[in-house]
């Protein structure tokens, strides 16, 4: 249960970021999983190479993830958008960026294991996440949900209470109208990409404290992230909170439940759960949970 909540918190941060960038640029970012994975490696460097408490990685993770994401937007996506590229071209560009990230992650991993003799494949830092206790609980169990809640609430306040946040929402809803009333659409998009990457960075920085990470962690996580965003409704930021938590819980608890009933052989098949939920959502409610008009269903389809 604790594992489920921690995983769900991490996933919420990731899916929120993904949905945010999808809303602005209308392109699913296939590099999002590796925004997180690269920060898992920076946490490893902080903990093992610099011997500092890996929770520091959360702060650096936010800025580093944000910077990586901002680079993708400014150097790759923005020039392509200016050239009038279709969303398919943009998707391919994010995949190209993902390949560069995969390469960087593996170079870091090879470097750590060959030069510094640090286990860099299938590593984990559970001694930090579970060894240190806060209020009698493993620290990660307190920190991950608290951070997720803090980030989500501050994002909500930022989007609704600050002038810039409101401008951002306007730019998402109607870019050309927002531009005519003097909102710098490009700046708001750049900021949302930075926030998106920052959230992924925080999620990624926390990941090794909870679970075993590897060079392909980002690739594996990507399915869960997309599933969470789609189940929540790809165009609704609050849907992403919901989807992230739902998929996270379903994945861990569902696997646990099946493993108790059918034996531990089901555990490796864990990624099938988010896939099935995603497929069902796409088949029956492609707008996601937040896209369904609940009021209509409860009133009995009268309209």
């Amino acid at each position, binding site marked *: 249960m604790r594992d489920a909540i921690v995983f769900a918190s991490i996933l919420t941060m990731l899916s929120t970021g993904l949905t945010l960038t999808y809303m602005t640029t209308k*392109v*699913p970012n*296939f590099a999002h999983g590796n925004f997180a994975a690269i920060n898992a490696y920076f946490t490893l460097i902080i903990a093992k190479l610099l011997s500092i408490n890996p929770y520091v990685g959360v702060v650096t993770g936010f800025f580093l993830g944000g910077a990586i994401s901002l680079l993708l937007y400014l150097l*790759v996506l923005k*020039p*392509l958008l200016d*050239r009038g*590229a279709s*969303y*398919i*071209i943009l*998707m*391919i*560009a994010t*995949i*190209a*960026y*993902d*390949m*560069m990230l*995969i*390469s*960087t992650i*593996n*170079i870091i991993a*090879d*470097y750590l294991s*060959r*030069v510094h003799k640090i286990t860099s494949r299938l590593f984990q830092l559970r001694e930090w996440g579970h060894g240190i206790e806060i209020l009698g609980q493993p620290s990660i169990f307190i920190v991950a949900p608290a951070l997720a809640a803090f980030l989500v609430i501050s994002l909500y306040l930022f989007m609704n209470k600050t002038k810039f946040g409101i401008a951002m929402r306007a730019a998402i809803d109607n870019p050309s109208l927002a531009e005519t009333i003097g909102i710098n659409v490009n700046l708001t998009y750049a900021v949302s990409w930075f926030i998106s990457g920052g959230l992924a960075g925080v999620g990624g920085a926390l990941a090794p404290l909870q679970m075993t990470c590897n060079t392909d962690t980002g*690739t*594996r996580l*990507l*399915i869960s992230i*997309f*599933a969470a965003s*789609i189940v929540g409704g*790809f165009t609704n930021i609050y849907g992403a909170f919901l989807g992230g938590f739902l998929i996270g819980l379903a994945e861990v608890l569902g696997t646990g439940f099946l493993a108790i009933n059918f034996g531990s*052989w089901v555990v*490796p*098949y864990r*990624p*099938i759960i*988010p*896939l099935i939920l*995603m*497929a*069902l959502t*796409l*088949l029956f409610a*492609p707008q996601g949970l937040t896209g369904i008009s609940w009021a209509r269903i409860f009133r009995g389809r009268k309209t």
Partner: protein
Amino acid sequence: MELSAISIFLTNLITLIGLFIIISLSLNLEYGYAGIPNFGKLLAVAGGAYFVGAVSGRILALAYGQPAGLGYIERNLEVVGLLNSAISSSPLQSIGFLILSIVGAAFFGGLLGYVASYPAIRLRGDYLAITLLAMGEIFWVIGDNWQPLIGGSMGVRIPDPFRWIGGEYRPLAILLTVLITAAIIFLYLEYLGRSPLGRVLKAMRENELSASVHGKDVVKLRTKTLIVGFAIAAISGALNSLWTVSVSPKDFERVRHTFMPWVMVIIGGAGNNLGAVVGAIIFVTLRELIVFYKYFFEAIIPFDVVWLEYLFMGIALIIVLMYRPEGLIPEKPTRTLSEKKIREIAARTISEKPHENS
């Protein structure tokens, strides 16, 4: 006959190029012609290979009275050894097994294409891309863990349909088989591209709405294209496993079988079969050269050089997308009439203003 290192390298290289030409041609049909972002190429290629490992090997085992159930995996080496000696003396049965594997893999690939794309086929392309990508990953998870299918992460050995040819000529025979298959697929796709169906696909790519206004069933066209594309890519997977006489999930992974074909098609030039071929030739050659000289680099840098290749591919892809989105060989408009006839009509319609046309 003694084969030198260079000729071994070259035969391997050309075989690999042939295999990747088949994959990038299939992606070119899906993306270049029909505009479908298939990010699940891995699913198709692995599907073809898994079929050979899991089904066609078992059919052969059944035909020779060997265990085809769980025993096929458990006593894999022994069974395959027996089967090999059984079919190596008879070319006819070997070729039969080869054809059964290829055709079966194509059918299975088509089926996978239908099933995997079904949840998202009616939605915008990005949902389809995400779904296919996820399906590919899941397929890998199943292959890696479910022992009875292809022996889990250990993989499985399969009977060799080229054994009767004899040791030194075997690589050459496989090379020819791969190249002939690739050539047939190339001609078929060229023909398809020029046919009315090919033009409808391009119309759908350019504007889905206007295609459906003109009475074309976009969903049906997309499904058909994916089935054909998956079937073609599955053939490549099947040939790959018949070449290495083994199927193992770790041979098929996302970067190699989904991203690399995309790099090939985009850089070669989408919507253009020749472009896909050129892209495949360039990238497979580059990759093999890097692997060939790996030990030379290894001494200088503290990491595996393969990763540099990924970095390079990513950068190359982004540069091409920005500065030459049409690729090395741009797409040509499809002519429905012969060059002569076009000139004739042109001469007739511009006859009021006579000037040299040739």
